[in-house]
């Protein structure tokens, strides 16, 4: 019998089989697998075949290539995302990638090594929950240009395409009104971009702030009044004239004058403006952790107060408010003898 040298063909020499095995492995290790792991799993496959399979998977957009401290990692790409990118070419995918990465400000040790050999240095993907709690400020178009090295016209075209596909959105920043930042469609922009509760469509709502200001002050004033009229012993009187920030917040919410949901910090900023108006004073007391409205073991209490002096003497004379004070001297065009402000004032 002649010995037939039979090369034992490994059962999964078929490239498709290899790919499927790799995909299965990736599913098993959702955080990514190194080349070493694949090699261990399928020791009979040559390196070249492995490389071909991996490249195919990458180009099909089913695998993500990441670089970590230990080497290259392959990770299964979210199939939902994979479906979205159908029909977009590489450049669009790249830009989308940049925006997605920028949406997650927290840096990790992963670096995204992009397809088609383009190296990107943006930070990788931490768990999805972290991106929502950290401030999402979006990325500026110029930054996208730097990161991708694509020319301006290309970038604009791509951004328009992505916007029409409802994958990303543009948010006007409140700090610089001409500047647009881009972020993924489904993400909420951060307060620093939209300005929080006080801005509606990039406009500062002064009237809203004023109304809230007056309402808070009236509430505190009436509290102080009732405390003063109760005529009890002074300690109790003073303590009852105080209102915690939590009480004020509840009162404002119940008033229902605000269309936007206001948090306690918002109310505290309003109360701070009242302090700067000189109408309210604040003290901080230590409070037990469990009491309502306490933050980190202390509570802020507010109280309406009167100014300590009446309008001072200088402003009761016309000279105190005169806009041309520096030009006024005896014998000049403007002098005390012919001052029209004085004439009007004397006629009161």
């Amino acid at each position, binding site marked *: 019998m002649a010995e037939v040298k039979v090369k034992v063909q490994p059962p999964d020499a078929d490239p498709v089989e290899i790919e499927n095995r790799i995909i299965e492995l990736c599913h098993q290790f959702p955080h990514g697998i190194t080349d070493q792991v694949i090699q261990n799993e399928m020791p009979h496959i040559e390196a070249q075949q492995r490389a071909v399979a991996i490249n195919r998977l990458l180009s099909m957009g089913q695998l993500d290539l990441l670089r970590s401290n230990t080497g290259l990692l392959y990770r299964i790409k979210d199939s939902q995302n994979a479906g979205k990118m159908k029909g977009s070419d590489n450049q669009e995918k790249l830009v989308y990638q940049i925006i997605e990465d920028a949406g997650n400000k927290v840096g990790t040790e992963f670096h995204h090594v992009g397809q088609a050999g383009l190296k990107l240095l943006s930070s990788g993907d931490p768990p999805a929950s972290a991106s929502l709690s950290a401030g999402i400020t979006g990325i500026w178009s110029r930054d996208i240009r730097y990161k991708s090295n694509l020319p301006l016209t290309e970038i604009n075209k791509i951004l328009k395409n992505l916007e029409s596909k409802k994958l990303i959105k543009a948010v006007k920043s409140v700090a610089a009104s001409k500047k647009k930042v881009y972020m993924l469609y489904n993400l909420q922009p951060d307060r620093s971009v939209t300005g929080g509760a006080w801005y509606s469509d990039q406009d500062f709502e002064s009237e809203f702030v004023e109304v809230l200001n007056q309402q808070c002050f009236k509430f505190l004033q009436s509290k102080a009044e009732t405390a003063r009229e109760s005529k009890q012993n002074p300690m109790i009187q003073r303590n009852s004239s105080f209102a915690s920030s939590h009480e004020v917040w509840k009162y404002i919410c119940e008033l229902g004058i605000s269309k936007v949901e206001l948090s306690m910090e918002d109310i505290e900023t*309003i109360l701070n403006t009242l*302090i*700067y*108006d000189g109408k309210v004073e604040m003290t901080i007391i230590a409070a037990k952790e469990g009491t309502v409205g306490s933050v980190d073991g202390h509570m802020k209490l507010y109280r309406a107060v009167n*100014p*300590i002096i009446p*309008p*001072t003497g200088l402003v009761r004379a016309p000279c105190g408010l005169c806009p041309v004070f520096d030009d006024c001297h005896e014998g000049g065009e403007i*002098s005390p*003898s012919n001052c029209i402000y004085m004439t009007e004032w004397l006629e009161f």
Partner: protein
Amino acid sequence: MTQAEIKLCSLLLQEHFGEIVEKIGVRLIRTGSQPLRVIAHDTGTSLDQVKKALCVLAQHNLVSYQVHKRGVVEYEAQCSRVLRMLRYPRYIYTTKTLYSDTGELIVEELLLNGKLTMSAVVKKVADRLTETMEDGKTMDYAEVSNTFVRLADTHFVQRCPSVPTTENSDPGPPPPAPTLVINEKDMYLVPKLSLIGKGKRRRSSDEDAAGEPKAKRPKYTTDNKEPIPDDGIYWQANLDRFHQHFRDQAIVSAVANRMDQTSSEIVRTMLRMSEITTSSSAPFTQPLSSNEIFRSLPVGYNISKQVLDQYLTLLADDPLEFVGKSGDSGGGMYVINLHKALASLATATLESVVQERFGSRCARIFRLVLEKKHIEQKQVEDFAMIPAKEAKDMLYKMLSENFMSLQEIPKTPDHAPSRTFYLYTVNILSAARMLLHRCYKSIANLIERRQFETKENKRLLEKSQRVEAIIASMQATGAEEAQLQEIEEMITAPERQQLETLKRNVNKLDASEIQVDETIFLLESYIECTMKRQ
């Protein structure tokens, strides 16, 4: 001395003492201390007149003199003392509230005459009071003396420095100018005088009493020839004490505005207890125990000890920080923080001026920068909740009016503006000085306007004076009703109206001067105590 202060001094001297004194006074304020001959030469007035002017000024404590080496006497004017003349009405009014009419007239006489002996004061005041009393009643000297002694006890009037009585006669020639000394203990010591007498009513030629004055006249002349028992002991009004009183008043009213009436009464009691014991420039009063305060509360206030303790604790904890707790002995030792109180009052004055001049939003920004000490423009918008454009505008306006200043912090060594932090800050001392200067100029403007108004209507005023004189003389000689009517009609109705308006305007301007002077007082006290602390 700034230009505004010199202008104001010249206006005041002119109004109170006349042209010549004003010339000499302003010359001295401008050029510092000068000897007699130089003054006469520079101002071009005769030596005689210069001497008289200096006499007047020295009598009113506006000018002091010093003997330099080589026997040259130099005269120096005190600009700040001249400015106190604005405050005379306030001093007189305060004494009226504390010691009623008698005290008021005593202080008025002292202020108008500069220095007086006690007997002279008592006599004058008794005479004046007698005139205002009903017929038949006269003012007793003893009552006036009592009030005077009380004023001296509470340090509202003090002895002037006098020539020291040398025990052994000086062999050499007397010095060109005497050096005046006053012993600290003697400053409020009232000499033992037995002033017996009553106020004399000054009668214009009265037929009924025609016989009496003739008989009494020889007695008057003999009275004047008697030596005055307290010759050489002159008294003057103690302005520092009045200032202390005003400061206490301001603190008490501030506490009343911020808290309630009872707290302000407690603070007033504490201040009254430390009137004599604390010097006027001390930062804190002496510590007072709560027991002492309880005993010294005015009789009408019957609050229990616990309530008092609660009030004191509240006062000590208040963010105003006027009252501080310095110990626990005697039920708790409390002090009043005078410098802090003055600083708060000065800050409140600044805030009030900013509010009236620029609006309440500007006032909000001003208080914000005061609290944060140094703050960037971006942060101002966020904290004050004011739209960016308006906030910028207001900050720049306040900056241009010198209420605020910028602090630059460069990021790079080349101080490039795009790479520098600009922080807004308020320096209270310099803002107070700026405002004080403005106050001086304002008062000068008000005085000028008042003089202008009076000058405009001079003709009318003279006419009305003539008419009054005629009416008075005709009444004295017993004219008929009809004739009086006729003369009164010399002043027509519109002229009467004009006179009314003039009187009203002059009063308004006068009152306004006094109000601005209140601001000056607060700012000056604050600047003085801050400079002393440094």
